[in-house]
């Protein structure tokens, strides 16, 4: 091919890639064109052509930089946030956590706060509030929040301990020396930390033991539900023990399950990862008083993931 035509075709390729936002590819073609132009002697306006190309390359580099440093999770409009809530969460806790997963931490806190009044969601809401505050970068805020809870009567001692262990481990990880007060009678032993899964957007933490599980999908291998996968929300988690509250309406789903049964096919959904594993039914009871009377509480011990 005539070298002029080759140059022309390289330039039009480069131009197309630029228009499609393929900056690297565009730059490559401009460089190739300019190398070719250098080699040819008899070319009109050689210098000005080369100058024009190098200006194009520079402008591409600027655009590339902008894309590279584009925000990972900017604050969305309220409408955008509402959409995320509704598309990525089924219950109120999941909706709030979805906001956090997409980096909408401030709004997530707004949505998590009322859930502290709910017996079922309280602990998870509390932990996630702490996480969001840490993700925004306000360590002091997170610690203040914990201290306020510590002196109020919102959480049970066990729940507070669980929140404290989570927060302490995160502070330790960040290399922040800030020992949280440990109530008398409790050991400072940190080995039992089981809840250090993080939900910061695009910066998942290394996992320590079992992550926080939001929900699980059980595939039944026998009984009436054989072959089906049913998803359940996890209402409480303590280490590798998961508690599910199952409405009396859904009794049929769990009729075939009894204490000691092995569940060989479970999909675990945590805020930062999904994985498969197995569990054993540690306890199945029908709740006989309170607002959840008649519902079932199913405790699962995770045996492998």
């Amino acid at each position: 091919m005539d070298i002029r035509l080759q140059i022309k075709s390289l330039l039009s390729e480069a131009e197309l890639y630029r228009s499609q936002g393929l900056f690297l590819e565009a730059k490559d073609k401009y460089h190739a064109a300019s190398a070719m132009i250098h080699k040819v002697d008899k070319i009109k306006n050689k210098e000005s052509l080369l100058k024009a190309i190098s200006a194009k390359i520079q402008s591409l580099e600027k655009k590339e930089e902008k894309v590279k440093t584009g925000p990972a999770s900017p604050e969305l409009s309220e409408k955008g946030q509402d959409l995320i809530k509704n598309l990525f969460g089924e219950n109120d806790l999941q909706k709030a956590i979805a906001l956090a997963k997409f980096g909408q931490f401030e709004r997530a806190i707004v949505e998590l706060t009322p859930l502290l009044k709910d017996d079922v969601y309280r602990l998870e809401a509390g932990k996630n509030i702490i996480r969001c505050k840490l993700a925004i970068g306000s360590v002091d805020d997170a610690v203040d929040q914990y201290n306020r809870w510590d002196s109020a009567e919102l959480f049970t001692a066990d729940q507070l301990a669980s929140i404290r262990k989570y927060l302490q481990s995160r502070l330790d990880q960040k290399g922040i020396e800030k020992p949280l007060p440990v109530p008398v009678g409790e050991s400072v032993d940190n080995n039992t930390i089981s809840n250090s899964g993080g939900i910061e957007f695009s910066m998942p933490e290394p996992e320590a033991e079992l992550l926080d599980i939001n929900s699980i999908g059980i595939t039944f291998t026998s009984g009436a539900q054989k072959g089906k996968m049913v998803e359940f929300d996890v209402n409480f988690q303590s280490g590798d023990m998961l508690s599910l509250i199952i409405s009396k309406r859904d009794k049929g789903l769990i009729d075939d399950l009894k204490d000691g049964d092995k569940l060989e096919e479970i999909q675990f959904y945590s805020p930062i990862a999904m994985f498969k594993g197995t569990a054993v039914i540690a306890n199945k009871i029908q709740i006989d008083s309170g607002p959840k009377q008649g519902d079932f509480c199913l405790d699962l011990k995770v045996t492998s993931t």
Partner: protein
Amino acid sequence: MAIFNLKKREIECKIVYYGPGRCGKTTNLEYIFKSYKKQVTGEMVSINTEGDRTLFFDFLPMGLGKIKGCDIRVQLYTVPGQIKYSSTRKLVLRGVDGIIFVADSLEVRREKNMTSLKDLQANLKEYGKSIFRVPLIIQHNKRDLADEGIPLMSVEQMDRDLNRQLKVPSFPGSAIKGTGVGVTLKACLMETLKSLQKEFKWAK
């Protein structure tokens, strides 16, 4: 995962457009939004970043009317193609029922297509799904550029690259002109509904 409401006889399923950055996922959705007014049931929402690149996802709700007595609602999503948004891609893929893999026909994007397909396989695996079993359609996009003398891969080569083992239906397309957009979506919906039918057996 599809939501199947037995009482209301209603199915809501999720179709995700996957593929490398700049391959034309958003353009597919834009064309559908413009051209299928009767089926589109709400606004198209796009959450973008610098240079119109998808940041979180695009979303478009559709209704297909009744199929065998069941109301079918479809949610279309695109993922962000840029490598660095891998955690978002995974989030958006959660609960997917059918996938359209949009491949870029530009020769210079050959590697990117393959990397993205591998990324899809890995992400599906983390949700316990196999790329060989999930309803999947491939679209070879940007075919219109052949007329402008831009180096494109042949459809055969792209199928060799991407579809040799998968052997899923594949269609040439030009999202910007709208060619192939409808058939691709239709094929994906058919595969998806077939697989949901197996799972839920709603049409007896």
